């Protein structure tokens, strides 16, 4: 009945539909304008450098030579590092809250992890400068010199650099990944776990089965965190050291796409410089759009799989 009413309404066009539709159209228009505007404002740079922009390592505003490789490198490196650090923790939290913890602890834990997501980026950055960076510097000084010979740990102990950026990004994306992973685990039918337990599985084995069942959605949750990390600006800008270089070293100060926008946008004195920066913004827009869309697609597909499976009402639920 509800469906037929919706269908009927969908077929009629009246003032109400037009009135609210204008606003809905405005929202679509904003997104379209956003993409178009970024493209239009970066035309100069697009035409002058072409594809070479993305593989050139030189960033020299004075000489008017612009290559975005160090920024892409820094963005991908820091985001992947954050992903490696955050994913096990985030999934651990999701499993703990949805499968293991006592019911009384559930809400407080959800609240606390959400608090982590509510803290503004600038506050993370402030904490990063005055607490995290000195700690990382101490860690770098304490690193044995044999290890410091490796390319992964080379460079002077500055504190600011890739490691600090990765750690702070990891802290920031944990709540996003874990909350989506939690939702995804919730959509795994209870029968799935009960079947595993009935066959004599241990907790680990039952949860592994649930995680495997939910793998599509879990990957979506991880990608969502990745999308967040790619675009994160202030906290990273404040701890990564802002030095445009391509380096494998965790200790080396580097740069990200978002950070170079934050730092140099108001300083861009000539049109080409500004266009080059906006082209970086365009790329950031496209890559986050792609990552987020893929992540939503995976989570959505997971939700659909959950609904397709016919589940018998679990006796435990029926009794409760």
């Amino acid at each position, binding site marked *: 009945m509800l469906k037929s009413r919706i269908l009927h*309404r*969908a077929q009629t066009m009246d*003032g*109400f*539909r037009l*009135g*609210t*539709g204008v*606003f*809905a159209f*405005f*929202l*679509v228009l904003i997104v379209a*304008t*956003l993409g178009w*505007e*970024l493209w239009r*404002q970066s035309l100069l740079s697009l035409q002058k450098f072409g594809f070479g922009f993305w593989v050139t390592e030189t960033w020299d505003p004075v000489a008017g030579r612009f290559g975005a490789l160090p920024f892409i490198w820094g963005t991908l490196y820091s985001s992947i590092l954050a992903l490696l650090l955050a994913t096990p*923790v985030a*999934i*651990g*939290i999701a499993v*703990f*809250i949805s499968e293991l913890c006592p019911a009384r602890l559930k809400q407080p834990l959800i609240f606390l992890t959400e*608090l*982590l997501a*509510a*803290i*503004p*980026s*600038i*506050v*993370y*950055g*402030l*904490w990063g*400068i*005055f*607490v995290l960076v000195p700690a990382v510097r101490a860690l770098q000084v304490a690193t044995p010199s044999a290890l410091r010979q490796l390319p992964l740990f080379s460079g002077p102990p500055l504190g600011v650099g890739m490691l600090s950026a990765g750690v702070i990004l990891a*802290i920031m994306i*944990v709540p996003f990944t874990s909350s989506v992973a939690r939702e995804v685990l919730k959509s795994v039918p209870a029968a799935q776990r009960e079947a595993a337990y009935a066959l004599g599985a*241990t907790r*680990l084995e039952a949860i592994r089965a649930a995680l495997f069942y939910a793998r599509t959605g879990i990957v979506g949750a991880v990608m969502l965190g990745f*999308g967040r990390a790619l*675009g*994160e600006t*202030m906290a990273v800008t*404040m701890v990564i050291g802002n030095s445009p270089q391509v380096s494998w070293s965790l200790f080396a100060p580097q740069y990200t796409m*978002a950070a170079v*926008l*934050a730092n140099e*946008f*108001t300083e861009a004195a000539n049109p080409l410089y500004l266009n080059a920066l*906006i082209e970086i913004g365009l790329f*950031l*827009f496209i890559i*986050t*759009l792609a990552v*987020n*869309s893929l992540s939503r697609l995976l989570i959505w597909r997971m939700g659909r799989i959950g609904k397709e499976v016919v589940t018998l009402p679990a006796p435990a639920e029926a009794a409760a």
Partner: protein
Amino acid sequence: MNGIARRQALSWLFVGFCGLSVLVALVPLAFILFFVLSQGLQALNLGFFTHMPTPVGEPGGGMANAIVGTLILIGLGSMFAVPVGIMCGVYLSEYAGTRFASLVRFAADTLNGVPSIVIGVFAYGVAVLPFRQFSALAGGFALGVMMIPIVARTTEELLLLVPATMREGALALGATHARAVFTVVLPSALPGIVTGVMLALARIAGETAPLLFTAFSNRFFTTKLNQPIASLTVQVYTYAISPYADWHRQAWAGALVLVSIVALCSVLARVATRRLERMHAR
């Protein structure tokens, strides 16, 4: 037997790992809140709210201009985004099955995922460049663009919670579609809409990146909307990366105020949700 013992041990190891993950996430949270509170409280006094920034080296001073600036920017953003967001939400819930609604939903989710710095670049292109002037209006526009998708999606979700019988009752009494929505459905979802607005405010109140090249910053007190304006977040950023100890103290105080604003909005959102749940539980 040995196999079972091993499996049990592995299982407990995994349970331990999950518990540990929670601790690993809570430690930085505790650390951050501890530092913001302890450093912030030391530096916070009445003067912080009432005084203007002093030049480097002169002790004292506050962020009166930045606090007013942040309130103005948030106000401008809300004035722009709340009506647009609510109307989008109404459209999405009323015409949920249409193809255009799917497109709008996709646009909203896309906008929600766009990095805030890119929103800043966009606002610079449409609200700063044409006027050759950084302004409070451009900053408010940038924040508003970030708010719209949040308000729209929460409004949509919470309108769907309103029982169909209420709408049917209104329609049965001869109300037009618009009238049923605006006088019956929307008011009964009001706490839910407040939740959406509060969540959006909590998200944008702490934003720095979209303001850097739209509202810019201002050493002076201003309420002119066509002029660059200071904001708490940008001020905290400037002070944090400066080499002066006194400015660092002020940055912590600013961070404490920011966290308090965000916490207040989150709590209000929670209270509103509770009210909505109670309203419809009856």
